[in-house]
């Protein structure tokens, strides 16, 4: 008995020494390169914590950067277009299970793409300050983005480029980066059977629906509306100005006029794309939804069981390019200044995560996440 106690003590001592060694080791790495610490939080928290100085900056989708800047809590350091010009961002995706179990799913998706095209056209017109629709657009923007300040709405719109086209080369680049940054579960990647990034991108993205939408963009809605109106459970991200086209199409009745009744899916709006993929698409509570392309890329690999279509989604249209911003407190002048400091982000595997890593890579900085 006494002996076994002694042995256990030795074991505990050894474990303890390992921890101490671990502490020293982790301290060393942080001293050598002083990584920027990414910490997950909601957009509200980012604004609040930037104000109190708990974080030195954040990377987030609009409108949070615009709100922080108009409140004078911080300033834009890098617009995501500076990290990667015209990078794809949010997209419209459908759930594979829904696709297979719905007989006219192709027809529905074509009309989803068309509604997107129409919304984007509306926004791009109304964005001009002399447009008669401008005030209406600003109101929609404030409603969807949860803003009270028209200046913030204007500012957030300026950073976002609304699109409807799919972007296979851009998707390929994202896949490569996600691979390089060690985000894929390599076991799952090997199971997936994709040969390389562009093989995966091609299987993920379908151009047909947007092509159809372009061909029918001048057609009268009543002529191409679905015979039998269908119900679609839609998922989107909370207060994300990138997905404003969805809100416009919904509010202005584009979907309805094309025979699609939008109902908001259970759990929507989601805190981030990872949630939408796992709690929405995978749980089959979402048929179609908009979210960042990286969560789609990541979860179709990591969260998937390749014997089923659980986490399998397809991308049918773009939503926006660019539109994320690294906002910092006023004393920060470069990304380097963030070394050793804490920076808010919406979570691992989000587009902001990947963009921030790309920005850091350019400057030779290290990011802990």
């Amino acid at each position, binding site marked *: 008995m006494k002996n076994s*106690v002694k042995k*256990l*003590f030795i074991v*505990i001592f050894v*474990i303890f020494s*390992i*921890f101490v060694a*671990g*502490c020293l*080791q*982790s301290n060393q*790495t942080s001293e050598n*390169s002083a*990584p920027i*610490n*990414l*910490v*997950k*939080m909601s957009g509200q*928290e980012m604004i609040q914590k930037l104000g*109190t100085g*708990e974080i030195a900056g954040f990377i987030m989708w609009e409108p949070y950067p615009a709100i922080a800047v108009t409140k004078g809590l911080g300033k834009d350091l890098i617009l995501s277009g500076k990290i990667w010009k015209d990078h794809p961002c949010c997209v419209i995706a459908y759930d594979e299970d829904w696709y297979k179990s719905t007989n006219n799913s192709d027809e529905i998706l074509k009309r989803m793409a068309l509604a997107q095209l129409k919304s984007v056209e509306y926004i791009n017109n109304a964005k001009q300050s002399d447009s008669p629709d401008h005030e209406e657009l600003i109101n929609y923007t404030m409603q969807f983005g949860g803003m009270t300040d028209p200046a913030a709405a204007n500012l957030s719109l300026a950073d976002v480029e609304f699109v409807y086209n799919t972007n296979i080369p851009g998707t390929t680049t994202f896949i490569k980066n996600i691979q*390089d*940054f*060690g*985000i894929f*579960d390599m*076991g799952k990647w090997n199971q997936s059977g994709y040969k390389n990034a562009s093989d995966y991108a091609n299987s993920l993205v379908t151009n047909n629906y947007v092509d159809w939408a372009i061909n029918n963009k001048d057609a009268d809605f009543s002529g191409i509306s679905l015979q039998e109106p269908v119900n679609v459970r839609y998922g989107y991200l909370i207060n994300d100005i990138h997905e404003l086209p969805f809100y416009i199409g919904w509010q202005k009745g584009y979907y309805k006029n094309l025979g699609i009744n939008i109902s908001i899916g259970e759990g929507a709006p989601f805190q*981030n794309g*990872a949630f939408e*993929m*796992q709690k929405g698409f*995978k749980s089959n509570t979402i048929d179609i939804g908009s979210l960042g392309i990286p969560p789609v890329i*990541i*979860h179709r*690999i*990591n*969260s*998937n*069981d390749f*014997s*089923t279509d*659980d*986490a399998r989604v397809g991308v049918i249209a773009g939503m926006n390019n660019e539109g994320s911003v690294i906002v910092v407190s006023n004393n920060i002048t470069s990304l380097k200044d963030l070394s050793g400091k*804490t920076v808010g982000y919406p*979570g*691992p*595997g989000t587009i902001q995560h990947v963009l921030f*890593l*790309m920005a*850091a*890579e350019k400057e*030779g*900085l*290290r*990011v*802990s*996440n």
Partner: protein
Amino acid sequence: MKIGEKKKEVVINLLSLVGFVLLWQIILILTREGIFSIPFIRLRDIPTPVETWHALIGSMFTRIYGPSLTYGIYNHVFASLERVIEGGIIAFIIGVPVGIGVGYSRIIGNIFNPIIEIVRNMPPMAWIPIAIFIFVSGGSIFIVFIGVVFPIILNTIQGVRSTDERLLDAARTLGASESKIVTKVIIPSAFPSIMTGLRIGLGVGWMAIVAAEMVIRSPVGLGYFIWNMGDLGRYSEMIAGMIVIGVIGYIMNISILLLQRRFIKWED
């Protein structure tokens, strides 16, 4: 005879662990073959023990991918333990004197009891939202503190109050002053209870820290790790992290028990 029985018990314990792992593997294989399923539960997402093992090994140490530095489970364990130990020390420093005061003096008891009785019924998790807002840093240490301090206070009170009356009488007739009685009789006599309180408290604190780290974000900590892995859909790493949490909690409990046995040689 006794040693033989002990060995038998250890063998049964090990067999039960092995059996559990085997059952886990078999259920998952059957699930993936489509033979077995439970409604409303996505068993398919659960990794097998083998996958979990690989994930554990693969994520044990810090990995660097280009600009990305991903801390290993190793660092997360250390960060969480550090918080638990810090919160535990603060709780000990505050909890023991309060417990002794309340247990010893009726007046102090009447002052503190209403607060203790109400606050101790608020679980540590209930403090997380307020901790997020009021603490610039160290919110998770505060959560641990809340988890540890009440078991320490309550066990100290109980230890003080269950001090053998005859020992108090003995000390009095031996000429001990009231302060000597507290330091030389009540505290030593309550010491095993205090240690028990510390052990139970650290158990609660360990669970609380993991919950707190899921909400009060800092870049390292086991709670943060499993949440992150969940966000990335890396379920095998997530389960590996959960197992590490369980094992560390177990080791912590056993270590304090052994320390207690080691240093309280006089106890039956």
